[in-house]
């Protein structure tokens, strides 16, 4: 277990995350991107040749690509040569020197969410050594997983210790050439998580970000790969409810899931990136590619997400249903308040016979927020008896926000059953008055209605996450209805 403990240590000491790299002269390379920078990243991370080759292929492809413009979001152009592509946790150096320098609104939010004091500074990106009392918890956690044969480690570590697994599965769901941001990520990704659950193993616990702060320090180009071998089960929880401030405005993460025969992966996200201040300044642009492949028969992948943060969210967790009888699910709550823009949804690609998918999307718009649902359900010619049910609901609070729905459907097999239901509702003055006349305050009434609206998604979240998510929504939408 000695090695395991060392891993935990290096994980917990966020600053020293890249500590195994000994030949670094400086922690940060100058802004700009070319092949030399990619070679440097790969060398500093002591990667095997296949990784470097893969990064370079991605980079060369990226040069031929154009930034997508189809999403229903607006932002100033991003200068990709103005970003530094390798740096040890950058936010700690460039961040505020103490909590006194942090947006007071952010601190207020921590207070309301009940974030422990010692975690607040780290979340806000203050340059202090965060103190964690969870070392022992984390160690026990790692030991228990190792006993079951579950591999759960950082991506860098996986590349070192399990190169064969990485080489086999990396890019097998999201190829390096997939889309502009995913391709950029493939070329320059810094770190992320790797999970492998062997045949017939049920992960003995939820893989939550127990090290929730440290795990988030993986920077702007994060990459996650989760493989559930035949008959395996794993539930993975990403993110945390406390808003995270980060100097890196652009985040382009990639998540790949692979479910083999009879395997099941449940991936839950509660993401609350700093959305910017009330005018929308300083928020994170979150451009994420998440895709799971149900590769084997009767495999199952569920995405559940609660998105309340980011200035801009561009994200479509998808399922490729290859195995016969495989099942894809997508449950989402997306909130756009103030000047936030969210363009999110899913893709369900039915390829195998008897494949089923369920989409439940709940969009909440408040303030000047713009919320778009974009979903694609595609039934391939060979997908006999495929079924999809899509439920897409929008809730509007106030009259300056917007909700948009872009459902796309392509059915190439006549036996397909595809259903789409959509509703748009508004929290009305009548509803508020009704609740208030029963003694319930306007804020509580709004929370009650919003929670009711999101119920179908919250019940898919692991229990403690669901409770946090409810509290998060309450804080996010505070004051949204006068």
């Amino acid at each position: 277990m000695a090695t395991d403990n060392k891993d935990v240590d290096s994980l917990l000491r966020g600053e020293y995350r890249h500590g195994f790299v000994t030949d670094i002269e400086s922690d940060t390379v100058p802004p700009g991107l070319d092949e030399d920078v990619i070679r440097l990243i790969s060398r500093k991370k002591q990667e095997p040749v296949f990784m470097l080759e893969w990064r370079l292929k991605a980079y060369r492809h990226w040069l031929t690509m154009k930034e997508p413009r189809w999403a229903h979001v607006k932002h100033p152009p991003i200068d990709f040569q103005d970003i530094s592509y390798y740096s040890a946790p950058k936010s700690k150096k460039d961040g505020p020197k103490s909590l006194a320098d942090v947006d007071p609104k952010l601190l207020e939010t921590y207070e309301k969410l009940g974030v422990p004091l010692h975690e607040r500074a780290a979340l806000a990106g203050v340059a202090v050594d965060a103190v964690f009392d969870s070392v022992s918890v984390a160690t026990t956690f790692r030991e228990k997983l190792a006993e079951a044969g579950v591999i759960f480690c950082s991506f860098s570590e996986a590349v070192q210790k399990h190169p064969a697994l990485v080489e086999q599965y990396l890019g097998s769901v999201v190829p390096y050439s997939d889309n502009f941001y995913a391709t950029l990520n493939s070329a320059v990704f810094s770190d992320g998580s790797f999970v492998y659950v062997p045949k017939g193993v049920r992960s003995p616990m939820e893989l939550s970000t127990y090290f929730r702060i440290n795990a988030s320090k993986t920077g702007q180009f994060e990459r996650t790969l989760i493989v559930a071998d035949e008959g395996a089960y794993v539930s993975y929880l990403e993110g945390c409810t406390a808003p995270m401030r980060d100097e890196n405005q652009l985040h382009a993460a990639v998540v790949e899931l692979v479910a083999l025969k009879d395997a099941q992966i449940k991936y839950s996200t509660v993401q609350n990136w700093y959305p910017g201040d009330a005018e929308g300044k300083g928020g994170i642009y979150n451009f994420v590619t998440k895709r799971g492949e149900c590769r084997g028969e009767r495999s199952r992948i569920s995405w559940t997400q609660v998105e309340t943060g980011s200035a801009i969210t561009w994200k479509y967790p998808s399922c490729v249903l290859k195995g016969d009888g495989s099942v894809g699910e997508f449950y989402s709550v997306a909130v756009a308040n103030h000047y936030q823009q969210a363009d999110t949804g899913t893709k369900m690609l039915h390829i195998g016979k008897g494949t089923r998918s369920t989409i439940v999307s709940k969009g909440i718009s408040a303030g000047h927020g713009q919320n778009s649902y974009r979903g694609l359900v595609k039934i391939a010619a060979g997908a006999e008896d495929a079924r999809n049910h899509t439920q897409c609901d929008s809730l509007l609070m106030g009259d300056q926000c917007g909700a948009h729905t872009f459902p796309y459907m392509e059915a190439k097999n006549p036996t397909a059953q595809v259903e789409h239901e959509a509703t748009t509702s508004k929290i009305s003055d009548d509803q508020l008055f009704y609740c208030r006349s029963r003694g319930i305050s306007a804020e509580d009434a709004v929370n009650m209605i919003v929670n009711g609206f999101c119920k179908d998604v919250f019940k898919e979240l692991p229990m403690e996450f669901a409770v946090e998510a409810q509290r998060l929504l309450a804080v996010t939408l505070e004051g949204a209805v006068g």
Partner: protein
Amino acid sequence: MLEIKNLHARVDGKDILKGLSLEVKAGEVCAIMGPNGSGKSTLAHILAGREGYEVTSGSVSFEGKDLLALAPEERAREGVFLAFQYPVEVPGVNNVYLLKAAFNAIRKQRGEEELDAMDFLALVKAKMQFMEMDPAFLNRAVNEGFSGGEKKRNEILQMLVLEPKLALLDETDSGLDIDALKVVAKGVNKLRDPKRAIVMVTHYQRLLDHVVPDKVHVLAGGRVVKSGGKELALELEKRGYDWLKDAAA
């Protein structure tokens, strides 16, 4: 308990209440009757604190407090309850959830401890049985897909659970068949108490056959034009309102 003095109020620039005065004592059950447009529902809404009504002059005191200065939820916590003429649907929110939140908000105000889920459920189920309601109803969304009769029954159930000091019933009898009317009346009668006042806004005698009022006030032209005992309602039933409209002019 409730003292309304010379109340003037308008909606969308139109004067509706024009110097309404009314006193309701603890233990009293009174009916407020009157023709369409006389201001009955406006009065009920103003007392509950609905927005959109402009009180231009006059005062309303409830147990010595200035009722108009309080937010709707504060009034509810002080013990004012309005049974809506058109109860509002709140999709996604369970009946039992709304009731429990309301119940505990009011208990908190009274300095009492919040009731836990089990005790609360027992309490509600007993009241539901009294109101002849199916327990499955508790887990349905508030008023969503309810028939007119179910909605009214639900209002009375809420009232029985929340035990207000002042219960205002806005046209609770409208849209009810005779069986539902009897159940609703049973609920209202159950609430009769020397410490409680019940004000029924109604158009017809129907409800008053089952809930016999101590007093009847007739509204016309935004004022109380006649007050009397329960016989007054019967007289109105026979003669209509026209003979009183002249008094208002």
